[in-house]
């Protein structure tokens, strides 16, 4: 048996790769194909799909419909679903903007420290990656809660008379997402700022550039790959986020993730949920592929 494998390279390869290939094809690729199939059939009366399947592109059209038939009541919100997609993207853009705006100076600050401090601060940036995302979101929730520390602190200072409603609104969701994904932005930006040769800034200053111009024309262009990586690494997971909008938004803030989840919960519209998942996946993949095309192998390795 062993001798047979020893002699035959082809069978060796087959033996090594078949378990992984089988598992991934069967439990990842096939399920995605089933999502694709279900996104093109009509829904059943009590959830699931209509049998025998009736093919339709209604699930994709519904996304662009002005009327939201799946919600209770004949309300005709203007472009509800596509509006939620747009809203999610806007939230994701705001979150990405803040993560980069705050993360870039932080990365710069860390890169300027002495090596021992630099390592210590980077560990502080990395630790959140190691901790349960749910637990971190809860940590923020208990601070912002009506009976939480921030409210009692502000009331103790007599700045406010009654607790503020800090949770269950868009602000809470945005703060929660920044809290969750800021480390994702710092890591790649730090990698590129750390490699940046700071003597170039001195050279620019010697040649008469004021600091802001030296930054805009020398440092920013040279660290741009890190900024773009940060943009992708934050935007992609945030646009499809579910846990943060659900916990911090308390069901009041709808994002793509919560909308999809609703189709598999109370709305029981699996085909529509499937079509939205595929659109979301396509959006994310386009972003990731564009990123991989634009960045060189070297900058990605550096991360």
């Amino acid at each position, binding site marked *: 048996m062993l001798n047979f494998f020893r002699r035959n390279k082809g069978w060796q390869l087959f033996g*090594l790769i078949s378990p*992984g290939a089988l598992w991934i094809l069967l439990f990842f690729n096939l399920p995605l194909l089933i999502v694709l199939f279900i996104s093109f059939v009509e829904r059943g009366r009590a959830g699931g799909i209509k049998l025998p399947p009736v093919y339709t592109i209604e699930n994709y059209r519904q996304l662009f419909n002005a009327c939201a038939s799946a919600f209770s009541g004949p309300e005709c919100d203007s472009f509800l679903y596509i509006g939620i997609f747009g809203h999610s993207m806007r939230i994701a853009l705001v979150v990405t903007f803040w993560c980069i705006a705050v993360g870039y100076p932080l990365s710069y600050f860390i890169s300027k420290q002495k090596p021992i401090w630099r390592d210590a601060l980077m560990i*502080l940036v990395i630790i959140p990656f190691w901790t349960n995302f749910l637990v971190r*979101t809860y*940590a923020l929730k208990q*601070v912002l809660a009506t009976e939480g520390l921030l409210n009692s602190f502000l009331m103790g200072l007599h700045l406010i008379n009654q607790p503020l409603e800090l949770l269950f609104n868009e602000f809470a969701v945005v703060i929660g997402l920044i809290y969750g994904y*800021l480390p994702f932005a710092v890591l790649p930006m730090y990698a590129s700022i750390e490699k940046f040769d700071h003597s170039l800034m001195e050279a620019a200053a010697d040649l008469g550039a004021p600091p802001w111009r030296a930054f805009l024309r020398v440092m920013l262009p040279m660290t741009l790959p890190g900024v773009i990586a940060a943009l992708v690494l934050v935007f992609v997971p945030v646009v499809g986020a579910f*846990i943060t909008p659900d916990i911090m938004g308390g069901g009041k803030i709808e994002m793509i993730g919560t909308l999809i989840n609703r189709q*598999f919960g109370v709305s029981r519209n699996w085909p529509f949920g499937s079509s939205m998942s595929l659109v979301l996946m396509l959006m994310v993949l386009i972003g990731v592929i564009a990123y991989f095309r634009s960045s060189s192998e070297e900058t990605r390795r550096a991360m």
Partner: protein
Amino acid sequence: MSTRSTVFPVYPRQQVRLRTRIGNWLLGTNAALVFGFLYLPVLILIIFSFNNTRSVAVFTGFSTQWYSTLAQNVELLDAARNSLLVGLITTIVSTLIGTLTALAMERYRFRLRTTFDANLYLPIVIPEIVMGIALLLFFNQALFPFLQNAFGIRGTTGLHTITISHIAFDIPFVYVIVRARLADFDRSLEEAAADLGADEWQTFKRVTLPLLMPGIIGGALMAFTLSLDDYLITAFTKGIREQTMPLYIYSLVRRGVTPEINALSTALLVGSIGLVGLSLTAQSGGQVYTRGMSLGAGIGLGLFGLISIFTLFSTGALTVVGLVVRLILLTGFLWAGRSYSGYREELAETNPSGRALAWITVFIAAGAAWLSALLLLA
């Protein structure tokens, strides 16, 4: 730019110094605010898990009562046991499969290789909720109807479907970590082994595998952590009755804010930081850490076996099956003994700070093994 300055402006020295100072001050403030934002909530979470009243806003006194309520919470202990079971099976299977796949992809050239490589990265990049609903639909609309029609078996969701799904998303992570290790691999070591007369299998067992071990153990611990922490995919593939830890916590967190959740979160925080810390030390490459982990795990299991035999014997609750299981656990000591000589050799060659870290990994591994045995056998 056309208006490039040809005359060098000379800034007064003091003005430059003031500017730099203001700039540095702003940078420092930003850093302090960011770290405060990231860590204060977690710190507050930990502090209020020791509060002696139900408040999470006013600290009235130190107590560990919320931890003792946790230890008596049957629902929670069940969930923890399920998580551990799913995590262990997931880790073993996905580490094995992921390592084999990494070997195949790194060492062989074949058609569709790059396509399959990209395909292996997909589960990492696509939104988790998409993978969750894909698996939900797969089980309910494809696999179960198929099993019913073809074999007359009624499929149900439960811990097994959760495990299958966790393995599917863990394989890519193990694959990436092990493959990174393989890419740095010095193949001349294998050639040297072959020159010295080792056959392929011996070379693999005695040279390749030990050198890959840090990557494999790192990948395994990462897989375990991801499986223990996963909520979304678990929520879509769970059965009606069984819960896992994240499912249980999620249901609590959605309802509100209580110090019990703080205590539970703190426990989880310590656990996952410990695990990932172990994973990273293993990946750092020193054999002393992987040996130390196996030493620690052996001691932990052995000690648990020994002590539980005595306590169960003295209370008269020892059954034959229980005794056999605990005797098997006792072999952990043999395992520890075997690792110890290798560990000592490696330890002698490590610098003092590495040595301290190595002993810490031994203790953490022992603690983790002890806790796992306690939860699974309680």
